């Protein structure tokens, strides 16, 4: 068996699909953030696979930028979760609809 780029892309797609499932079904904002991390990492794996396939570093640079974006997203997301938890007792993404009206 020769492990080509196809296998890495397939693993990336499976992990992305699992993360998508988590984002759609979970109610806790913390697990939502964790699922988004999962999806971002699956994208990173795809970028790095193609980077290796074509023999250029562009995909790796892109993956580094995605890592920076993920870190920023976690900081803001966790800050929001803590702020919401301070103001309201429970954390349920379905009930955080104050901005809808």
């Amino acid at each position, binding site marked *: 068996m020769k492990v080509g780029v196809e296998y890495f892309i397939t693993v990336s797609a499976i992990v992305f699909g699992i993360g998508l499932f988590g984002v759609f079904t979970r109610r*806790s904002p913390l697990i939502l953030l964790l699922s988004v991390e999962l999806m971002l990492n699956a994208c990173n794996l795809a970028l790095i696979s193609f980077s290796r396939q074509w023999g250029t570093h562009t995909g790796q640079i892109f993956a580094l930028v995605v890592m920076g974006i993920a870190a920023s997203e976690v900081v803001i997301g966790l800050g929001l979760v803590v702020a919401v938890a301070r103001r309201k007792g429970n954390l349920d993404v379905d009930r955080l609809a104050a901005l809808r009206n």
Partner: protein
Amino acid sequence: MMYQVTFVAAAGLAIISAFGVVLPSNPFHSALSLILNLVSLATLYLLLQADFLAAAQVIVYAGAVMIMFLFVIAYLGGRADEPRRDVPLWQLGASILAGGAIVVEVVIAVASQAFGPAASVSDQFGNPLVVGQDFFGRYLLAFEATSILLLIAAVGGVVLGSKRPSRRIDEPDEFPAPEVQQDLELQAAVMGAETGFPVSRRATAAEHGGGD
């Protein structure tokens, strides 16, 4: 041969731990599974000769980001748990459909494309020196944009986590949070950060924040 074995092990572990992230109702278990997932993906990066990315993955994610996650989960205590488990059936089905559709589409797209053998690269490919030269040379703009983004995120994190959240004018206070409670919470957070032992304020939270 070693390559294939490592790939199968890392890929299987990545997929299993990905399920471990989305399925448990305790966010602590999810976070621990995500650490396993990140390390498995770092192994896959190593197989793809992305040495620097693998190191950055372990340091930035498993080191920094996940510690922050675990700290917040410990700080929130029981409030971080899943509120309820009765996801409607149609929603569950639609989620599985959406996730499965992505996988099937990508597999079809990949299978219909004849990828040749990977480009032959030198041993230097992906090591910190060459990646850094590219990052500070041809992709300098991306580097600067990322640094500005991180700076903005740091400022935003400080604003969001500041002691006194700005009050909304149109909404009356659901529960008048006395200043004392916030001080206690802050103290608990600081103590937890200093000792590494999460000090829970769940009793206080149940008293004041339960009536949502």
